[in-house]
């Protein structure tokens, strides 16, 4: 079915639980099912097992294993010297990663060298790098003949100035730069004239979901308990509604470092009977099916996949119109309600509208299901196949043409 092209995805941590990881695994599963050879390469490894469903035909390898079990005491002089060098390099800062990269703290000289050695060794197939730091290293060092694709999972405006500068320097060397939203595609195209910038949204893992009946008095939000997700804005918004809608619950799924602060905020607003920090769940699908609408209170996003998953359960959405994603996906008044970013009063008003009106929830929920359909694996993943095939053919055609001129 394919020409035996190997697709290699380079991830910072394939063993983590983030949205990028989940998305890349969905892509890998679809590609391997379509007959492609797919490898995932994890720069770091902190866990024993992968956290999302992954087809066993997808191979996973690690560049730097940080698990304690992986640290064997060195034997012999050479091993001790190598170990000492490794320890020293683990302490030294990376040379090629700008400090503003949100993953900067995971990089050091040792990790950086391991990535450079790996990408420089590639001679064929396609290398897909999945965050700015890895994109920068691939742009400079993956020069052995591999087709290169840079993925951007965050919107451009979110990156710090030093990262934005490096993007302009490095990304023109890629065969293609893939972004998630139309707004981002325009932004990147303007910054990178002459570079191929393509929009391919992430796909939800399935469209075959149990639809909400819109009769429960449950709203759901989900994400890491982290400032980006804006749960500190959502809780005060709920406080404005609790008197009028005392039977309603807000369930926030996810774990993270801001749990204690959010708990304090819940206590401050006396919402401990209404707003629940549910923790991490392996069965978010089931929880979404029980809800009546979904709330997205993020300060920024790339493309919020859990929101689209919620829509695949026929849940209408109330969302801040933050960069980027919500406005790309939602049509205000049709499949959800968009309100000005970080405006808690407007967020509360929009949630109140849905809480007051089951018919409106059902109507918008049906529209949301239709919207979600264009983010199904069957709509999205063929676009990756087409891109990889085309880039590979272009490379080989060019190579052959050059060969004739020698």
């Amino acid at each position: 079915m394919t020409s035996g092209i190997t697709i290699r995805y380079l991830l910072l941590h394939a063993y983590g639980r983030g949205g990028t990881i989940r998305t890349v695994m969905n892509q890998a599963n679809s590609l391997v099912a379509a007959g492609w050879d797919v490898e995932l390469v994890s720069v770091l490894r902190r866990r024993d097992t992968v956290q999302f469903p992954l087809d066993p035909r997808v191979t996973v390898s690690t560049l730097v294993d940080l698990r304690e079990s992986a640290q064997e005491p060195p034997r012999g002089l050479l091993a001790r010297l190598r170990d000492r060098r490794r320890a020293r390099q683990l302490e030294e800062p990376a040379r090629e990663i700008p400090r503003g990269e949100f993953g900067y703290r995971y990089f050091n000289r040792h990790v950086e060298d391991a990535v450079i050695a790996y990408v420089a060794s590639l001679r064929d197939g396609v290398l897909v790098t999945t965050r700015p730091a890895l994109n920068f290293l691939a742009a400079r060092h993956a020069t052995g003949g591999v087709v290169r694709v840079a993925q951007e999972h965050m919107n451009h405006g979110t990156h710090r100035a030093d990262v934005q500068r490096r993007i302009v320097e490095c990304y023109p060397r890629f065969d293609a730069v893939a972004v998630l939203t139309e707004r981002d595609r325009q932004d990147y195209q303007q910054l990178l004239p002459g570079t191929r910038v393509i929009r391919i949204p992430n796909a939800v893992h399935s469209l075959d979901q149990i639809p909400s009946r819109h009769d429960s008095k449950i709203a759901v939000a989900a994400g890491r308990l982290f400032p980006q997700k804006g749960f500190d804005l959502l809780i005060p918004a709920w406080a404005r509604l609790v008197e009028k809608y005392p039977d309603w619950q807000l369930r926030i799924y996810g774990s993270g470092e801001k749990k204690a602060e959010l708990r304090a905020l819940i206590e401050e607003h006396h919402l401990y009977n209404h707003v629940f920090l549910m923790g991490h769940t392996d069965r978010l699908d089931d929880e979404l099916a029980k809800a009546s609408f979904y709330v997205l209170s993020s300060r920024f996003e790339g493309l919020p996949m859990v929101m689209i998953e919620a829509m695949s359960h026929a849940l209408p959405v109330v969302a801040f119109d933050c960069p980027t994603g919500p406005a790309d996906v939602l049509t205000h008044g049709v499949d959800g309600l968009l309100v000005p970013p970080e405006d808690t009063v407007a967020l509360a008003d929009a949630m109140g509208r849905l809480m007051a009106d089951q018919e409106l929830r059902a109507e918008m929920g049906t529209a949301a299901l239709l919207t979600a359909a264009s983010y199904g694996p069957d709509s999205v993943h063929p676009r990756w196949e087409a891109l990889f095939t085309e880039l590979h053919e272009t490379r080989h055609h060019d190579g052959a043409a050059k060969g004739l001129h020698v």
Partner: protein
Amino acid sequence: MWPRDGRIRVVGRLHGRRGDGGRDWQLLLVRRSSTREQLRYGARVEGDRFESEVPVADLAAYDPAGIEQWDLHFTDGEVKLRAGRQLDDIRGKKNIMVFPAQRVPAARGTLTVQPYYTVQDNLSLECRV
């Protein structure tokens, strides 16, 4: 559960028992380490809805040795119903439905009183100095 302003207000519904049978209902606190020690508070019951409250300072009279628990019940003198939350879909309430602690002066320092769900999703109070 409304732990605020020096009180713990408990609002809920009776199941398997109507509250309007002419009997007086009470909220009953049973000290787990010594079940003969009990506190009782009048409850307002209408249909199946009950409501009662505990002044947190009442618990200061019982000097806890380390951490102590009091289990909440409702009783009409004939039956004793354990207070809890069983009829929803949320499992593991202990870590999800978490209530604020309140502090009152006690003989050996400040007593912290915090309602919580047990692992069986029943309601109890935890007291610690």
